[in-house]
């Protein structure tokens, strides 16, 4: 096809229009696409912008969870009904937040206690470190036992946590009273 092969110059539409204007191509010889691309040109590119990180309120709860507590162990992925312990923690946190408590550290404590009432015992990093030191003397396997939930997915159904939807009022969720 006649026309400039410098693809960086203009678009295919402007280059073809150049050919038609200069008479290098007759109007009746124009390619099929010409009318279509002319009538439906590509949409303009939106202005450049910085790409933001996507963060959710629960991310902060989860971050604090991992900062405070040791890794609660493996999760059974094959059972879709069972939830991992961090997920339970986050759900409970948001649930309690919906009930009115807003002070983060207190909310955090309450969540821990609420889960402990259901038999989920969370181990902090310090406790884990202490247990490690002991286990070197006695038995290794004792320290790694965390909760019954991690091994038994069936019991998790007892801990039925309503998943927080968009209705959850997240106002003041992370405000610390200072």
């Amino acid at each position, binding site marked *: *096809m006649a*026309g400039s*092969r*410098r*693809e960086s110059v203009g*678009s*295919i539409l402007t*280059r*073809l229009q150049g050919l*038609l204007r200069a008479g290098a191509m007759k*109007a*009746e010889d*124009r*390619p*099929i*696409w010409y*009318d*279509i*691309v*002319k*009538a*439906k*040109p*590509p*949409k*303009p*590119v*939106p*202005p*450049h*912008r*910085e*790409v*933001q*990180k*996507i*963060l*959710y*309120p629960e991310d*902060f709860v989860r971050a604090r969870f991992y900062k405070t507590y040791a890794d609660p162990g493996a999760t059974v992925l094959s059972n879709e009904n069972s939830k991992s312990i961090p997920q339970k923690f986050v759900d409970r946190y948001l649930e309690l937040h919906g009930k009115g408590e807003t002070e*983060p550290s207190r909310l955090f404590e309450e969540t821990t206690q609420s889960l402990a009432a259901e038999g989920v015992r969370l181990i902090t990093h310090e406790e884990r470190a202490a247990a490690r030191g002991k286990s070197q003397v006695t038995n290794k396997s004792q320290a790694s036992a965390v909760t019954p939930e991690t091994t038994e997915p069936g019991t998790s159904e007892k801990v039925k946590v309503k*998943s*927080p*939807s*968009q209705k959850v009022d*997240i*106002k*003041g*969720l*992370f*405000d*610390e009273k200072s």
Partner: protein
Amino acid sequence: MSLYSRMIRWRACQSVKSCCSLHKTALSRAKVNLEQVARFSGSKLVCNQQEVEAPTPMRGEETESVADTALQHDDYFGLKNLVTVRDLFEARVHLGHNSGLRHESMSPYIFGERQGTDIIDLEQTLPLLQHALDVCAHIVYRGGMVLFLSRNQQTLPWVERMAQEVGEYSHCRPWKRGIFTNASSIFSTLPIYPELCVFLGTQDTVFEMHLGIVESSKLLIPSIGVVDSNCDNSDLTYHVPGNDDTPAAIHLYLRLFREAVTRAKAKRKEDGLSLDPVAYDES
């Protein structure tokens, strides 16, 4: 909670300022976010408002009334209802590459970065995809040839089968240099070019762009391309930001293009545009 509902919620958070009193550490960042979102949503409105120029008949040309009327129609082939943002999301079209691999030209189409991965903005993808499908259908409607290209080995047989079944062309094999630019000597005939190239992935290998993009651009062949977050979209005529690696996403694109081509061909028959070519008379 699914990622989809999270995305919707995130949008909701961002638009209602009073809701967004975030954790102390995130507070300053959230403010910046809000400003930018406001600015961005304003600019987006502007792009959506762009006017579509009505086709003007060229001088010395007999207007092909049927095809031109079809062109003035906003959605002549009814392709707008084919796909929703939800469908795109479920086909994993929103999943981009690692943020470190991001191509600069794709940043306007990226919704955000989640844990080091770019998430493509499906609300921008959808209109671009519909537009591309419409253009493809119009070209087929006027009897143009469409060439489907892809270098994804995993979905190669499906792309070729789709092209065969709709009666169009496909090239999913290594690109020999000059298939377009040196066509007359490669095919030893007067060159034949497709009227549209559809790239279901714009990468040839992981590191290189598909050579066909530049060649079609040089030879004045319009191109439609699905561009992932790590691809350059500058040489394509119509680009559709979206995942180009996941089979589910590619199967979705294939389904959409198959539908567009089939509908266009049916319409072409209906409107009496397709004629069987008469035998060439030697005399």
